[in-house]
């Protein structure tokens, strides 16, 4: 239930952000878009932070807590395959993250919708006052509407969920061999940050090899890239905040990649957990 306290904090944050006006507010031409971007950026930043923190911390606690309370003994002494136990636990965390993100998304969409409507009216008033041409007004209205509730925005929130899915499965994998919750959380957070530099590091290393790289080395770097997920691929979140369109193909590829990472980590988690002794 404590998870939902965060949703209360999020709601307050959202309301505060919707009333917040930038210092340059309504002085430059694109100020309406900027206001909406600030609103989306605050909301999606909070959503991303919540989902990642929750995915790591909650997953890291799952097995140690069950073990400490001996609930694990009562569950595994039933005819429950260990894979089912792991998948069930992971699914529980992911369902909770998904429901929380849906609620936050709902709140963001409602506030964003009303804010966009308000700003569209402001733009129309501006057009009347300054005598804008019909084309110019159309252009402005379309620019403002693009920063409102769109499918692109939903794709960005989808990417936040995907990132949380990858981190939850990674934390689950670490917790199957880790001896403490703190270790799991620290390692997961380190991998999370490393994941944002994986691509840069790989490119830099591959280009610094003057004589070119052998096939084996390439395979090795690809293997390392598998262990450390490449979170730069999830940068569509920033684009969606700015209202840029995300092609469906990229979103689908991201979804497949997420399933692949989560699948690999879950299989590895099962591999270590299936013979673990309690």
């Amino acid at each position, binding site marked *: *239930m404590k998870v939902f306290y965060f949703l209360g904090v999020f709601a307050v944050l959202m309301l505060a952000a919707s009333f917040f006006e930038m210092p340059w507010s309504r002085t430059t031409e694109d100020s309406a878009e900027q206001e909406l971007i600030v609103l989306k950026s605050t909301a999606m930043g909070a959503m991303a932070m919540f989902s990642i923190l929750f995915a790591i911390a909650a997953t890291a606690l799952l097995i140690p807590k069950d073990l400490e*309370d*001996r*609930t694990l*003994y*009562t*569950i*595994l*002494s*039933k*005819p*429950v*395959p260990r894979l089912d136990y792991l998948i069930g636990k992971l699914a529980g965390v992911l369902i909770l993250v998904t429901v929380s993100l849906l609620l936050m998304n709902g709140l963001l969409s409602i506030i964003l919708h009303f804010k966009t409507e308000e700003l569209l009216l402001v733009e129309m008033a501006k057009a009347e006052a300054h005598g804008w041409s019909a084309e110019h007004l159309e252009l402005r209205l379309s620019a403002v509407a693009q920063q409102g509730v769109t499918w692109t925005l939903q794709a960005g929130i989808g990417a936040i969920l995907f990132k949380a899915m990858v981190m939850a499965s990674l934390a689950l994998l670490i917790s199957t061999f880790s001896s403490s919750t703190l270790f799991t959380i620290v390692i997961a957070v380190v991998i999370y940050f490393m994941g944002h530099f994986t691509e840069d590091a790989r490119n830099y290393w591959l280009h610094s090899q003057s004589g070119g790289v052998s096939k084996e080395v390439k395979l090795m770097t690809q293997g390392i890239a598998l262990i450390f997920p490449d979170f730069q691929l999830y940068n569509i979140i920033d684009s969606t905040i700015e209202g840029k369109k995300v092609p469906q193909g990229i979103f689908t590829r991201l979804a497949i990649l997420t399933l692949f990472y989560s699948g690999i980590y879950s299989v590895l988690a099962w591999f270590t957990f299936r*013979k673990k*002794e*309690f």
Partner: protein
Amino acid sequence: MEDIPAVQINHLVKEFPSPFRKTKIRAVDDVSLTIMPGEVYGLIGPNGSGKSTTMKALLGLLRPTAGSCYVFGKNSLKTDSRQEIGFLPENPYFYKHLSGEETLRFYAKLCGMRGKALNNHVDKMLEMVSLQDARKRRVGGYSKGMLQRIGLAQALIHEPRLIILDEPTAGVDPVGSREIRDLIVQLKDKGVTVFLCSHLLEQVQEVCDHVGIIFNGKIVKAGPLEDLIAIEDQTEILIKDAGPRTLARIKAVIADSENADFISMGKPRTTLERLFLDEAKKSNATTMTADQKGGDRA
């Protein structure tokens, strides 16, 4: 009676790696035991003697270093062997946010139960452990005795043929302890095999018909309880309302006999536990009568 043993442990050895040492710690050392269906077997020993390790190996929670464990002929490392097992760990805790009823529903679903059968079993188990009144209360607010009883109910939810109890009355007050023992006796009457680990010897003596004594990971003595505790060369006679003259004559008869020796004579004693339970019963009855009188006056 079935021919397949409910529990078959063959030369079980379990070693744990010791940090900073090359040698391993041997928690269980060549333990073999067989429990036939319907028996109540008590494994007794001091703390750290290997009782819980043996149980965990039987539940597949630990992999034997050597030897093997079978439950109704199925290897205990296989998940399907657990279809026949109900387990109550020592000092169990359950998900605190769930009520007693939800806890049982959760465990029933883990055993593959659904629909009407699930509801019936949950009701039956709650009634059996006398927790109908607390079924909607969160488990987080349960007393130690109630936790133990809901633990027993979850262990029995899928009607297993073997029930494994690790220190089932640890930390429970004498009344709660008696209720749990009564439940074990009920299970025995229903033909359920019970494998019980405890270091409370009196408790084991009351409910078990077979006993194994484990020390430092080795079974040092095992067999039917009556055979193990009987003192073969002594005879006990209990006489009611015997006067001093009768007793003197009995003593004289024994003294006249060629082989028999008189050892002692005295009044048999009740146990402290029985005394406590009798007093608790009387006290409850007095309180109820006083309440009734108060109610009548009002």
